């Protein structure tokens, strides 16, 4: 099945006046898997961090100049390249602020596109069909560019593909209703021209999409009547054939188009069996052609659909498991997932893939299968080759291969598993490690789940520490949905398992290293951490840096309080918490400052709670789960939060520089969340009365702080206003005063 996840808006779009023009010229990838380089239709290139939905940098050309090609990233030199006004190639780096000061070169002919692909050099395709490597072009920008296309022939679409050290530039052209495909191989340079079969209606294709699969270039194109055709061009095709060849095609899909024809629509191949189409009507919805759908071409079934609000411009890009669709006034990013459809899954027999499937299980689908995946033989073949490679390697070394370790995990004792995993991790090279760590972790978790007696904390901790279990590893940027698989499938089980076995060290590691722990798991952790008796947790060894931070926090405050007997000034004039001691059970009016120093939880427990505080979450999802906590737990946690807030309010905060410590904002946010989730309970609970009034004083002090900041802002603005010198005209009558 394929799934379209909840999308989010990456950026707003400028409305263009004409219906055909899009606000976006192109979206390209960057060195970072989480980045997207968006080129708008006029003058700006913006670099976004996709997961944060925020721009990291933006570059514009001067008024009057126009970007005529989407900016691309040069993976070799880490530079961006864009073309303005058809002829000016600009190259800059991320740290360059001004595009006008960047390197520029003017070429002698109009450029159609600059293409970039990881592992390949940048290629410039000219409007008249000539192709140059960017490097050689920049070395002599004014070199003559030959025209390849005939007079009335114009390029409609182009892409480039790197396959087996062979670099291809593909582009389609239109000439008097005829459509041609050009395949330009680089080094050695050969050009092959194909004629596309004419559609009966004589219509032009709406969109093209090319992908490389099994040494063949698959070209997918969509016609307004809803037909999606596929043509295959061999990578090692017949070289040297002269003239124009006819390009055979096969109908992959006939989309229901409803009334009329498709207008602005686009199809893109997601994998061998799935096609995403934007700008088509949903078969079950009545009207509107503004749907994004994923179709399975093997079964001709609609797998997922999503309505896109606003005008669709027939543009869609697909990168790393995310679809980028401009629609209406926004550019949306929609993560998707395509799993192999099989009858078995339909019958529900594959409930536990990790356990049920043999050693060549596809629980961790490899990049190779995605690329070259032949369903019948692919995975086994890949694993076989890897295995043989590993075997070859292991002939010299006595250590076990991944598969052997996997075997061992199924039956072996904990200590031996730990030792072998250790050995494997410490010698494995990066790429292999990435895959094997995932598989090992899966296997370990799977066995522990089945076999309650078995639990290998050392081995798991070692695996987590490799940091290969989280998807933010840069090398994985081409792995597409893989990244999601790791975090989504792996860590909940692992973390829950660790919780189950009270392996707090592993919990801490997971909380620190996994970027996207589901809120329900976070909550489960929180609940366990609060509930655990202090005695249990104090024995556990935790990550030393975080412990020392907490120690410092507790100790420094205590020392500070005793040294000068001066209470922190924060609440003095608003409402003094020292005279309204917060935990009612500790009420001690004589010595109000002292009770402040008492941390309501043990040291190690506090360390674990800090980790929870720093875990990313989204509030909407977290609040329902927070309701699982009971009242005493909530009060205790709130007391802890208050304690740490007060500590931070003292100057201790600035004195202890640590890599990881909860920020003031995180603390306040958590207080708010807890109050949101349990407000009625807290109001009713007599224990919580003092606490609540203290929290109210937090709020007051924050409000006061912000109002003071507001005042400062006001006065600063006044200063700012005073500054700009008056525009002095040719003549004025002014008043001056001398003293």
């Amino acid at each position, binding site marked *: 099945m394929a799934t379209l996840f909840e999308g989010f808006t990456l950026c707003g779009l400028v409305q263009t006046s004409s219906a055909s023009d899009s606000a976006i010229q192109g979206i390209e990838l960057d060195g970072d898997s989480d980045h997207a380089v968006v080129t708008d239709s006029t003058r700006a290139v913006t670099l976004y961090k996709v997961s944060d939905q925020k721009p990291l940098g933006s570059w514009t050309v001067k008024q009057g100049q126009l970007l005529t090609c989407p900016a691309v990233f040069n993976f070799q030199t880490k530079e961006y390249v864009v073309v303005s006004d058809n002829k000016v190639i600009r190259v800059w780096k991320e740290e360059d602020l001004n595009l006008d000061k960047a390197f520029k070169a003017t070429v002698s002919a109009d450029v159609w596109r600059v293409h970039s692909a990881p592992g390949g050099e940048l290629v410039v395709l000219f409007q008249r069909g000539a192709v140059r490597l960017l490097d050689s072009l920049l070395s002599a*920008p004014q070199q003559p560019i030959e025209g390849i296309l005939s007079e009335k022939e114009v390029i409609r679409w182009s892409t480039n593909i790197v396959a087996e050290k062979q670099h291809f530039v593909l582009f389609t052209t239109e000439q008097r209703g005829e459509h041609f495909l050009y395949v330009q191989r680089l080094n050695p340079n050969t050009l092959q021209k194909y004629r596309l079969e004419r559609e009966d209606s004589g219509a032009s294709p709406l969109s093209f999409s090319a992908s490389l699969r099994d040494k063949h270039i698959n070209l997918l194109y969509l016609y307004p009547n809803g037909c999606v055709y596929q043509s295959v061009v061999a990578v090692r095709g017949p070289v040297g054939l002269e003239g124009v060849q006819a390009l055979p095609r096969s109908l992959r899909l006939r989309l229901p188009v409803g009334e009329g024809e498709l207008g602005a629509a686009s199809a893109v191949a997601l994998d061998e069996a799935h096609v995403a189409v934007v700008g088509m009507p949903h078969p079950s919805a009545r009207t509107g052609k503004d749907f994004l759908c994923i179709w399975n071409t093997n079964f001709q079934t609609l797998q997922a659909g999503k309505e896109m609000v606003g005008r669709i411009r027939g543009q869609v890009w697909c990168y790393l498991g995310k679809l980028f669709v401009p629609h209406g006034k926004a550019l949306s990013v929609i993560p998707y997932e395509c799993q192999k459809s099989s009858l078995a899954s339909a019958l529900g027999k594959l409930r536990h893939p990790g356990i049920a499937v043999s050693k060549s299980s596809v629980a961790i689908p490899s990049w190779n299968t995605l690329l070259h995946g032949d369903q019948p033989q692919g995975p086994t073949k890949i694993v076989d080759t890897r295995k043989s490679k590993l075997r070859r390697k292991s002939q010299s070394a006595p250590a076990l291969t991944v598969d052997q370790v996997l075997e061992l995990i199924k039956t072996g004792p904990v200590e031996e598993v730990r030792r072998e995993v250790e050995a494997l991790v410490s010698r494995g090279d990066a790429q292999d490690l990435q895959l094997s760590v995932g598989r090992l972790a899966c296997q370990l978790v799977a066995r522990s789940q089945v076999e309650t007696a078995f639990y290998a904390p050392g081995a798991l901790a070692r695996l987590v520490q490799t940091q290969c279990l989280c998807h933010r590893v840069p090398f994985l940027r081409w792995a597409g949905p893989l990244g999601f698989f790791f975090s989504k499938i792996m860590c909940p089980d692992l973390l829950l398992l660790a919780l189950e076995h009270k392996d707090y060290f592993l919990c801490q590691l997971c909380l620190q290293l996994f970027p996207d722990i589901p809120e329900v798991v976070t909550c489960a952790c929180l609940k366990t951490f609060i509930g655990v008796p202090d005695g249990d947790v104090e024995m556990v060894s935790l990550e030393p840096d975080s412990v020392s931070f907490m120690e410092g926090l507790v100790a420094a405050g205590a020392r500070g309080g005793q040294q000068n007997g001066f209470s922190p000034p924060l609440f003095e004039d608003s409402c003094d918490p020292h005279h309204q001691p917060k935990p009612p059970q500790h009420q001690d009016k004589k010595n109000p400052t002292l009770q402040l120093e008492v941390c309501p939880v043990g040291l190690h427990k506090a360390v674990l709670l800090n980790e929870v505080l720093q875990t990313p979450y989204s509030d909407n999802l977290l609040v329902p789960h927070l309701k699982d906590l009971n009242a005493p737990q909530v009060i205790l946690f709130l007391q802890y939060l208050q304690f740490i807030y007060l500590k931070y309010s003292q100057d201790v905060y600035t004195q202890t520089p640590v890599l990881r410590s909860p920020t003031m904002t995180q603390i306040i946010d958590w207080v708010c969340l807890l109050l949101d989730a349990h407000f009625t309970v807290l109001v009713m609970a007599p224990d919580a009365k003092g606490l609540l009034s203290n929290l109210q004083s937090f709020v007051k002090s924050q409000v006061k702080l912000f109002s003071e900041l507001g005042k400062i802002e006001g006065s600063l603005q006044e200063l700012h206003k005073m500054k700009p010198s008056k525009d*002095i005209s040719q003549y*004025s*009558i*002014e*008043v*001056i005063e*001398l*003293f």
Partner: protein
Amino acid sequence: MGEFKVHRVRFFDYMPTAIRAMAFNAHTERLALGRMDGSVEIFNFADRYFQEKVIPGKDSRSIEALCWVGGRLFSAGLNGEITEYDLETLRPKYSLEAYGGPIWTITSNSQGAHLAIGCEDGTVKLFEVLEESIQFERNLDRQKGRIISLSWHPSGTQIAAGMMDMIRVFDVPTGRAVQRLLVDRGFGGSKSRETVVWSVVFLSDCTIISGDSAGKVQVWDGHTGTLVKTHLVTKWDVLALSVSKDESSVVVGTSEGTVIQFQFIAPTLQQQQDKEWVRTRTFKNHTHDVRALAEIETAIVSGGMDTQLVVRPLLEKFDERSHASALRKIQFPHRNLVFCAKKAGLLLFQFPGQLELWRLGESDGHGKPGDSLPLKRKPEKLLHLKRKGEDHICCSALSSCGGWLAYSTMSSVRLYRLQTDNNDISISKVPKLPKILRSAHQLCFSSDSSKLFAASSQSSVLVIALSQSECKYVHTLKPKSGSRQPIHLMTNSVDGKWLATANSDCEIHVYNVQKLKLHCIVPVYGSCPSAMGIHPTTNNLTMVHADQQIFEYSIVEKQYTDWSRKLQKQGLHNLWLDRDTPVTHVTFNPKNPEQILLHDMHMFCIIDQSLPLPDQKTQFYNQMTLRSLSEQERPSHLHAFKICKTFQDLLSVSLLDDQSLVMVERPLLAITCQLPAPVRQKKFAT
């Protein structure tokens, strides 16, 4: 102190012209500066760079080069004439056609006996310097191509001549060319263009240094005619060269506006004997071509297309910081170009080619200090008077009632009667001026507009009586000292009794106009007065000198006033003395006799004589502090000098009879905007 309504005037489009040539006379410490419009200015470097004389330009005159012979100043230009100037009458003494086509350069030998000129026709002509004139002696061997630059060998036996694509060395006694040094052309596109050797210097060790249009500074051996070293300093032209007196340093000026210094030094400390010319420093004080350059004892003086004269001190020549060790930029003339009719609210702007008469705007609003008031009436240009003839205007005057206007060129004086009723203005030329009134260095009207004073030759003043029907010569006031120097300042008292004149010998004479005789001579002070004024009620004469000293002299008692003695005894504040532009105008407030109003280019000052003088420890610029103090605290912080720097690039400040101030500003930015574009510097692939 109080509030003032200020007319802030920026519509005077004063535009200085580019500097073309300069010559420094080390003996008298005078710098002669030639501008594109043919005017010559004399700066006294011994007296705070004061511009003591200006010889007005003429349409037909062009100055390509200037040259001092002793105290005599010669110029030569593309009109083919050699001109000697009379520095006492501020006019050319004579002009001599050289018969060689346009003259590119003129230079004298170190003995001061001969002048050599380089002509378009390829000749170097020698002139003998006689007592009262110069006389053509002979031509050196005629060459193909023009002679652009010349330099005498200090011995006077050889001359190096910069030409197109080459340098020639002539033997003066025989007139033969003895060396031919070929100068390379530029690279690339400029290969086909001839290289112009804009400038050469011939050193006493027979080294020749040249600067050319290909951007090279080349060092040659004059004995063998071989190239020693080439320094490529710019992509554009090297225009000017100047060598220091001891020949240890050469400065070059380029089209990029840079001045580059080369020094004759040993490259390493070990080999002190093997000296060579090494590029050492680069100064960038100009935005445009540096056309004229002089290296003097302690500074590099440069000027060019951007019209400003820059004195860049060589800091290694100074032991301590003083006014002389500061960078000086002279942008404005040190004399008045703006005249204000105080009663009528009119402004007269003097340009070399025309006069403009403006009526100030009006506002009936009232406002807080710092406010701009709404205008009821806009300022209005009443008159645009073009001069007659080709001589440029050298001085002008406007009577305070606004009824009379006069200007003078080198050859004639013109007087006009102005009549304004409401919005109509009529102008009529006064015919039949007295014959004796031929030209004037300064003009001024008496405050009741009944007399015109014209400063004439030998520091004398002609008194002309004006009436509706006629104007009549009355008398010539002559100084007793017999000074021959021109008068550069003239002022009279409001009661019409006194007239004070100042000349370039720093003498100040006070005449009694009613008795038409010399009243007294103010004791001569060592620095030239840059501004003076007679107080309307006390008749005290206030003088400000180029070295920033202020004196007040009681005309009636013929002695310095007590205030002046007190001021001299206590000394002026160092911050006052360190200012780098001279005070160019002194005026008074009739409503408040204690107040003296002064201004220079960067500030406007009211001196309140009733207040204590500031000592060195006092905060001198204290207006901001006073503003922040309360009414009660203020009096204890007051001192006599009230300085306002709100208005910059001031050309004139005057006080109208309605107590409002008129500040005429000419923002330097506005001048820069009107300059031609500087040389284009290529950046990237644009």
